[in-house]
């Protein structure tokens, strides 16, 4: 393997890992704090993508420059995360906290189906194109091939998200409260922590991360009904590899999946589909809880 091929594989892997990390870190954050395996996380991704594509289209039609369309990605992320995240938590999930985890999974699956159909009702069946941000940044030659600068910014966004979450969890009061709730919900309540508020804020943050994944990827794809399902399946693989509820696990899981997939595409394209889940299976054989599953305190 020559240097150019190795470099290309590395960048391809990092780009894909970054995208997977942004989507899956929201999933793992919600699970870590609330113990909810949120199948409807795919909807935040899909709604973020649709909202961004729609807003970018409207924004451009109003005569604004292609460069300014990045603002619409941020708007879509915030609107979908805040509104949809809040509504889902308040209207459905808060009634599920005392119920069995299986019931919660079923409820989020029902939500997933409802919100998928809601997309059809609101946005229709025609795919949306919103490639203005991608074209605004243009392309660059690296290692003998042309890459989009936009794709490279995905890596930067993932790094910012990762560092931001690390700072939030380790350097702020709210982050310490969150870690306390992750470790022991009952004890946190007895210590006076407003767990309900922690849940709402966490869920909205998770929803915003899902929406950010969709909104940021929207300019690179044809945003079409049903496109989010595969993404969330991959996100589950990332979370399973890294360990449910672990943010470092999401980083490592995304890197493993992204790099493994890139190696397969470049060298053994016939096993590209297989390789992600093969890696997951191997990890789970030796570490059934995932690589970085948070330790659980033993209760007597």
């Amino acid at each position, binding site marked *: 393997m020559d240097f150019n091929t190795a470099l290309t594989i590395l960048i391809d892997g990092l780009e894909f890992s970054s995208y997977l990390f942004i989507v899956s870190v929201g999933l793992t954050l919600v699970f870590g704090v609330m113990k909810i395996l949120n199948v409807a996380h795919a909807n935040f991704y899909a709604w973020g993508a649709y909202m961004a594509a729609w807003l970018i289209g409207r924004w451009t039609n109003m005569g604004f420059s292609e460069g300014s369309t990045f603002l619409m990605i941020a708007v879509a992320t915030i609107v979908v995360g805040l509104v949809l995240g809040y509504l889902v938590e308040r209207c459905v999930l808060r009634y599920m906290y005392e119920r069995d985890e299986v019931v919660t999974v079923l409820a989020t699956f029902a939500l997933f189906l409802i919100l998928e159909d809601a997309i059809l009702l609101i946005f229709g069946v025609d795919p949306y194109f919103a490639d203005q941000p991608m074209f605004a940044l243009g392309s660059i030659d690296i290692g003998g091939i042309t890459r989009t600068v936009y794709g490279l910014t995905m890596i930067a966004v993932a790094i910012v998200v990762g560092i931001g979450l690390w700072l939030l969890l380790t350097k702020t009061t709210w982050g310490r409260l969150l870690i306390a709730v992750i470790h022991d919900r009952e004890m946190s309540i007895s210590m006076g922590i407003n767990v309900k508020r922690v849940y709402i804020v966490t869920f909205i943050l998770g929803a915003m991360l899902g929406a950010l994944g969709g909104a940021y990827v929207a300019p*690179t794809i044809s945003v079409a009904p049903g496109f989010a399902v595969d993404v969330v399946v991959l996100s589950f693989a990332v979370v399973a590899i890294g360990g449910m509820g672990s943010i470092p696990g999401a980083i490592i899981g995304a890197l493993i999946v992204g790099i493994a997939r890139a190696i397969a595409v470049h060298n053994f394209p016939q096993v590209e589909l297989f390789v992600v889940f093969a890696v997951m299976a191997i990890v789970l054989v030796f570490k059934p809880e995932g690589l970085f599953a948070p330790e659980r305190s033993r209760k007597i």
Partner: protein
Amino acid sequence: MFHIPNIRTLAAASFSAAILATGISAPAHAKDAIKIAVPAFLSGAAAGPFGVPARNGAEMVIDAINAGKLPEPYSAAGFAGAKAEAIFIDEAGGNAKQVPEYRNLVQKRDVDVIAGYISSGTCAALAPVIEELQRLTIFSTCGTPRIFEEAPRKYIFRSMAHATADSVAAAHYVRTMFPDSHSYTGINQNYAWGQDSWRDFDLTMQQLDSEAKPSEKTQFPKIFAGQYGSEISAMSLDKAEMVHSSFWGGDLESFISQANIRGLFKKKKAILTVGGTAAYRLGKKLPDGIILGARGPYGILVRDRDTALNTWFVTTYKDRYGTYPSGPSYQYAQAILTAKYGYDKAMKDNGGNFPDQDQVIAAIKGAKFESFSTTVDFALADGHQAITENVYGITKYDSENGEPGVTDVKFFPAECVMPPDGETSVEWIKGGMKGAKCN
């Protein structure tokens, strides 16, 4: 109060009495209406590029037939005089949904004809069910050759050529237009359609070109994957001169968008066998220089074909839906026209009486007639599989009219790109495509 019967009533009564007295069975009664079910993707990723144009094409032609507004020779109103009630159903949801849906159409809703289906997987899954339920079904679009290769069918027709024609014609086009290009790679979806398309293209290239050099690293991403960054990198590094793809729907549009900005289409000649479905949707964003197919003589490749039927189809569609018809619009309209042809001919063969299903089937079997953009010839599979010509061109945006266009359009006769009766596609191609009539 007495009512005096008029002369018509008396005549009818006398005729009925005579029939009863002689024991002759009555001919089938004229029907006021028939039900035609039209399955197409109305939700999911395939709805926008495929399902909705398909539905529109079928709807427009059914309405025109009911109103007697089709051009000659199809101007007689109705299907053997009966008006059609169209029932549009969603093809999304996979085979587990489509098989019971089909049973529901036949056993509960008692439809007379089912015309449609886009997915090869669905067609393959439905074929034995259709034969079991014995209802006339016309596949409009699905491409897999297996439908008639696996077993003889009585109740199934397919009104366009199968997928082999697309791949064989693509290889012929490449050899004709770019005789100095020998190496190629591919990116195709990882299921029956993508794998069969690549296989047929690769086999044909190796038959037509003694110097053919297929890549060892052809890409088969998952259907609806949406992101092809790594695949585009791998193909950019590949030394192949051409890229073959049978991508369709949202996958096709995503791939074009991502590959375009990364300069793949400047480095390599792209052959998009279903690219025609994206032409009007992408407009100016469809790069120049792409070798474009439309799964036959449909859509942008025949927009300017100057026949009464085609001119009517293009102008009526554009007036009604505000855009030009793409391939699926034509293909579904062709399936509906096949039903009309069958009903009308069967009625004629039946002495002007409304035909039963077996008579309609007999009328379609082996038929050859003019459709909107091409000749449909049910020449294969004991008269159940149509052969139609195929066509490719090269994209060139028409900046004067502000719409996408094609240049260097070449048509390939049906007998050039489809295997003869009784031979499977793979056997025929591997055997050197004997009997192909390409001139």
